[in-house]
C-alpha cells in the first residue's frame, strides 16, 4: 500500500470573480521514503494540491470538491479537525517558500521548536530542549546551544530555512512537503539547502515532495517527477526518464525555455507562447491546446487522459520504475522534442474551432 494515495482530487475556490478551477482531478501515489518532484508554473495547482492533502486550504473560499486522499491507509478528507491536527507535524510536515516570514518573529528559535515537539509528544522541557539542540546541529547550525535564545531576525535566510527544516523533521514525519524550499534563497545557499533536505530525508526514510517551478531544482534530487499544468498532471515519469525523453509538449516547452550553459552557443531558447488558461472557466479540451504547437482538432474539445507512453506497458505508479505517462493526443516524437518544434512535413497546429475566439491561440498562429 502506498504511503500517500491521491485519487481524482478536485479543488475549487469560490471567489467574488467566480469559481477558480485550481485542481481538476489529480491522481498520484507515493511510496514510503520516495522522493517526488511536482513541477509547473505559478498557479498550476501544485501548491494547492499539497495544501489540500494537509487540509490547509484557506477557508471558506477553498473547497475540496471531489476525490480521495489516503495517507497510510487513512482517509484524510474524512478526518475530524483534531485528527488532522495530529497528522500535521507528526506524520506530514511542510516547509514553506519564504523562510523570512515563516518563523514567528516574537518567539525564540528554542520556543518554536520545543513547542512543535511538545505539541505532539509528552516530553519534559529539558528533553525537548536537548532534542532541539540535536536538531539544530543536524541541520548544520553552528553553536546550537548559543543560538537557542536567538530570534528569527538574527538569522540569515539560509539559516532560517535550516531552522524550518529542523522544525519540520523534529517529529520524524513520514512525509515532508517542501513548497519551493529554495526560491527565496541565494543561489549559493540553494544547493546547500537542497543537499541537506535530500540527505536528511534519505537518512530518516522520510518521503519527500518538492514543489517547484524550476526543473533544475528537482533534476538531481527526486526519483520521480509530476509535471502539472492548469490543475492537471500532464506528464509523470522517473526523473532520468523525463529528462531523457520529455514527451508532453508542455514539458518539452519547459525544457526548451531553460538556458543551458553546456549546450552549443547557438542553442535557441524557445519560449512557450501565450499564457495559462483562465482558471475561472471550467476546462474544455486539453488545457494546453491554446499554447501548443502540436495540437490537433480534437485537442480543442477532448481532454486527453494520462496514458502510458509505451502502449501496453504494465502500469507502475510509484518508485524508480514507474511507468512514463502523458496526457496528450499528439505527443512530439523524440526528434521533435529535441528540436522543440513539430518537424512533420506539412503539419500545422489545428486552428481554434469556430465560435471560440481565443486570443492566445491567434497569437500562437501568428507566431508560427
Amino acid at each position, binding site marked *: 500500500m502506498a504511503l500517500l494515495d491521491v485519487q481524482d482530487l478536485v479543488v475549487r475556490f469560490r471567489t467574488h470573480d467566480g469559481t477558480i478551477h485550481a485542481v481538476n482531478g489529480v491522481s498520484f501515489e507515493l511510496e514510503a521514503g520516495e522522493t517526488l518532484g511536482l513541477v509547473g508554473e505559478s498557479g498550476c495547482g501544485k501548491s494547492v494540491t499539497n495544501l489540500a492533502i*494537509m487540509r490547509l486550504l484557506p477557508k471558506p473560499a477553498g473547497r475540496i470538491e471531489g476525490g480521495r486522499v489516503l495517507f497510510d491507509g487513512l482517509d484524510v478528507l474524512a478526518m475530524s479537525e483534531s485528527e488532522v491536527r495530529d497528522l500535521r507535524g507528526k506524520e506530514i510536515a511542510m516547509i514553506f517558500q519564504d523562510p523570512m*516570514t515563516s518563523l514567528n518573529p*516574537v*518567539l525564540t528559535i528554542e520556543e518554536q521548536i520545543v513547542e512543535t515537539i511538545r505539541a505532539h509528544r509528552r516530553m519534559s522541557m529539558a528533553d525537548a530542549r536537548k532534542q532541539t539542540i540535536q536538531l539544530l546541529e543536524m541541520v548544520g547550525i553552528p553553536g546550537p546551544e548559543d543560538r537557542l535564545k536567538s*530570534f528569527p531576525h538574527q538569522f540569515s535566510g539560509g539559516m532560517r530555512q535550516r531552522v524550518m527544516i529542523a522544525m519540520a523533521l523534529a517529529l520524524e514525519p513520514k512525509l515532508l512537503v517542501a513548497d519551493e524550499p529554495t526560491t527565496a534563497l541565494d543561489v549559493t545557499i540553494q544547493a546547500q539547502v537542497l543537499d541537506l533536505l535530500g540527505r536528511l530525508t534519505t537518512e530518516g526514510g522520510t518521503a519527500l515532495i518538492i514543489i517547484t517551478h524550476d526543473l533544475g531544482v528537482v533534476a538531481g534530487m527526486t526519483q520521480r517527477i509530476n509535471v502539472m499544468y492548469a490543475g492537471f498532471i500532464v506528464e509523470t515519469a522517473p526523473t532520468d526518464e523525463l529528462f531523457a525523453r520529455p514527451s508532453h509538449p508542455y514539458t518539452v516547452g519547459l525544457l526548451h525555455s531553460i538556458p543551458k550553459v553546456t549546450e552549443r552557443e547557438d542553442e535557441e531558447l524557445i519560449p512557450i507562447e501565450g499564457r495559462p488558461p483562465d482558471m475561472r472557466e471550467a476546462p474544455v479540451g486539453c488545457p494546453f491546446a491554446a499554447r501548443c504547437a502540436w495540437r490537433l482538432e480534437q485537442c480543442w474539445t477532448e481532454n486527453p487522459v494520462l496514458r502510458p507512453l509505451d502502449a501496453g506497458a504494465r502500469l507502475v505508479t510509484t518508485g524508480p520504475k514507474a511507468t512514463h505517462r502523458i496526457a496528450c493526443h499528439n505527443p512530439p516524437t523524440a526528434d521533435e522534442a529535441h528540436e522543440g518544434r513539430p518537424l512533420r512535413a506539412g503539419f500545422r497546429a489545428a486552428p481554434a474551432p469556430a465560435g471560440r475566439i481565443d486570443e492566445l491561440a491567434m497569437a500562437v498562429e501568428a507566431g508560427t
Partner: protein
Amino acid sequence: MTIVARTARPIEARVSRGLWSDASRRLLRNKPALVGLVLIVTFIGVAFLAPLVAPYGPYEQRVGGSLEPPGAAHLFGTDLLGRDMFSRVLFGAQISLQVGVIAVLMALTMGGIIGSLAGGLGGRVDSVLMRTVDVLLAIPGILLAIGIIAWLGRGMLQLMLAIAITYAPIFARLLRGSLLALRESDYVIAARALGASRARLLARHMLPNALTPLIVQATLILATAIIDIAGLGFLGLGPPDPRTPEWGTMLVDARRFLQTAPHIVFFVGGAIVVSAIGFNLLGDGLRESLDPRLKR
C-alpha cells in the same frame, strides 16, 4: 600609522537585543517621545506621591483665604473655599490616572476578548460581533458615555465603565484586523502545518504579534480618556461627591470666577492639556519605535 590605528580598533557589532530593548533604544532617541515620557513620568509620579508632596490636603478649607492668586503660600492660588489649588491639582492627577488607566485596561480587556473571538473564530461570530461594534462606533464617544452614566447612575465605577465601553470597540476592531492579517501570514500557516491547535495559534502566534498596535492605541486613548473624564466631570457626571478633586468637576466651580480668579481655570485646564499631550507624544513615539519597518 593612522591606518594601522584604525584597523586595530575593535569593531563592535551592533547586536539586536530583542524587540523591547530595541524599541526602548529607539524611543529614547526620539525627541518628542522623550518629552512625552518625561511628562508622563512626572504625571504618574505626582499622582502617586500626591499625599506626600501636596502642602495641604485636598479637602482642607481655610476661612478668609478665598480665591487667593498664586503666591508663595499657595503655588496655584486657592479656590472659593480657600482650598489650595496646587494640592487639589496633584490629587486630581491621582484620580485622572486611576480612572483613566483602569478604564482603558477594562476597554482593552473587553475589546481584546471581542476582537479575539471575532478574529479567531471568524464566520458568523465575527459578523455578529463586528456589526455590534460598528453600531457602538457610530455613536459619538462622549454621547455614549453620557448615556451609559444616565443608565447606570453616577459613581466612580460607572464612570470607568462608561469610558471603557466607549473605547472597547476601537480595540476590538484593531485586534480583529491584526488577527485577520496574521491568520494568513506565513508563520501562522507554517505553525498550523506543524500541527499547532487553534488555541495555541491564537495565544502563542497571533496575539503576541497583534499586541504592538494595541499598546500604542491604549496610550493614545489614555490621552482622550483623561479629557473625557474631565468632560464628564464638567457636565456633572463625574464622581458623585462634588468635593472630589477631579479636574473636570474643579473646572465647573472655577468657571464662575473666570474673570475674578482666572488662575484656577488656567492651572486645572493646563494640567488636563499637559497630561493629554504627554500621552499623545508618548503614544506616537511608541508607534514609531515599535514598528520594525521604521527601524533605523
